[in-house]
């Protein structure tokens, strides 16, 4: 570095052709190497003198633009124990501001309103999927009380988390102008605490769901058939499925992966700076927001198909029992096993 300063002062390579400059650079590099070898023995201080012979205090000085070109954040030593304070300047804060105020607003609005529009269109054009053979009146047991509890624990906490989370991003656009700043602030304060504490219920629900249903959600060959047959949306075709069809498996895996992602990033935000620095916090927020928006959109589709979109589907999670004909149409392989299981003990009981 000192060698460059020396030649720079001596007239340097400015104003020459690019070929000449590159030749000069090669020579400079060689020269610098030789110089450094010599400089090991001779004092290099001589290079830092100002033209008048006085020590030049800026010869090795730092400059913020140079530092910011080298690194995205200028960090230094501080006299206080708060390590966060050692970051002097991080222009990325303005980048994160742009993500949060522009990118996220557009992305969130397009994904969520887009999903609502698609589902609304499906309801208006396709309508609810009826049971072709009609209700049989006979019921088959599908989910036990604990399974339903786990599902609804996750579901209710998800809705609470979704609404309170969306409030942080969209509340000031949609709700603040309606109810005023003070009321909105009180509401958001409560929403923040609800969001923080409900997260634990969501994680417990998610763990239970995964523990109970993982083995039935492992992708199998039948899922390809199910997809090929139009996934039960085409009435003329029959889509075969076990306990969970490929669509439900997709919801399971989305919930598992997105749930882990939002929980991990969310706990980083809930315990700020425990495990990461300012960059990590910004990334955690971006991951949390983007995954959460996609998760909300996916769950909107799940809610639609489980309620309005399909006759007989809600009962599975409502009473835990489904209509025999519904089970025949949507989960034939599971129904076969289930009936066999139900008849087995009955047969052995009558044999006694």
């Amino acid at each position: 570095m000192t060698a460059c300063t020396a030649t720079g002062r001596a007239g340097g390579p400015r104003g020459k052709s690019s070929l000449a400059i590159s030749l000069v650079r090669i020579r400079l590099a060689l020269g610098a190497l030789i110089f450094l070898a010599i400089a090991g023995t001779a004092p290099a201080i001589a290079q830092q003198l100002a033209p008048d012979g006085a020590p030049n205090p800026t010869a090795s000085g730092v400059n913020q633009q140079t530092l910011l070109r080298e690194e995205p954040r200028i960090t230094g030593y501080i006299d206080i124990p708060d390590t966060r304070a050692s970051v002097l300047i991080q222009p990325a804060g303005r980048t994160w501001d742009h993500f949060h105020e522009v990118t996220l607003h557009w992305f969130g609005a397009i994904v969520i309103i887009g999903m609502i529009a698609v589902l609304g269109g499906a309801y208006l054009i396709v309508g609810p999927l009826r049971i072709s053979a009609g209700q049989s009146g006979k019921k088959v047991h599908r989910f036990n009380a604990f399974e339903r509890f786990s599902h609804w624990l996750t579901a209710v906490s998800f809705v609470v988390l979704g609404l309170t989370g969306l409030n942080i991003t969209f509340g000031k656009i949609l709700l603040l102008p309606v109810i005023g700043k003070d009321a909105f602030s009180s509401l958001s304060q409560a929403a923040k605490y609800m969001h923080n504490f409900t997260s634990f219920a969501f994680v417990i629900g998610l763990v239970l769901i995964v523990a109970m249903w993982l083995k039935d959600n492992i992708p199998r060959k039948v899922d390809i058939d199910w997809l090929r047959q139009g996934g039960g949306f085409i009435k003329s075709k029959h889509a075969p499925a076990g306990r969970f069809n490929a669509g439900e498996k997709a919801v399971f895996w989305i919930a598992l992966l997105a749930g882990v992602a939002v929980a991990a990033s969310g706990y980083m935000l809930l315990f700020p700076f425990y495990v990461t620095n300012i960059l990590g916090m910004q990334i955690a927020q971006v991951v949390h927001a983007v995954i959460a928006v996609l998760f909300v959109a996916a769950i909107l589709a799940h809610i639609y198909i489980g309620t309005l979109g399909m006759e007989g589907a809600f009962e599975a999670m409502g009473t835990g029992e489904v209509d025999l004909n519904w089970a025949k149409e949507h989960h034939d392989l599971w129904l076969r096993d289930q009936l066999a299981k139900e008849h087995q003990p009955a047969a052995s009981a009558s044999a006694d």
Partner: protein
Amino acid sequence: MARMKFLCDAERCIDCNACATACKNENEVPWGINRRRVVTINDGEPGERSVSMACMHCTDPPCAAVCPVECIFPTEDGIVLHNKDQCIGCGYCFYACPFGAPQYPRVSDFGSRGKMDKCTYCAGGGGPEAPGSAAEFAKYGSNRFGEGKLPMCAEMCSTKSLLAGDGDVIGQIYKERVVQRGYGSGSWGWLTAYHEDVEV
């Protein structure tokens, strides 16, 4: 109307931390809250520079933009104030702030944050409290600005490294210094905060 800014001349800063101490004393800032701090770059190496940093009272302040409850706002003097009654302690202003200015008292379990606290340019608070009142002091600290005075940190600076006041005036002072002594490491943070630098 004057546009209030801070400028730290790193060639003059001696890392004495008098600015941080003056701030704490003037505003009776609680433990763990550091509205102003001194960061030393290249500590112990050639080219070491210390810079005193607090809220720069940015143009187009990113903290105000990201605030989910819109409790942060710039005044007509360009001072960025906030209303602690409305703050929900989400911490977003800290992620957006290029200078690490927002501070949060730890109030409860986990990492839960209390109402944000930051440099007010010694200009009181952005809440409904009467300017110069005891209620305002308790919540936000001193309101020297209302009395026509500049922030205590800059006023206390023994080497006049930290300058506060009208951006044009302090920019001119810095420019003259650089011209006279022949060097300067730049107006730290200005480009990020105000979208402009002091051209020398």
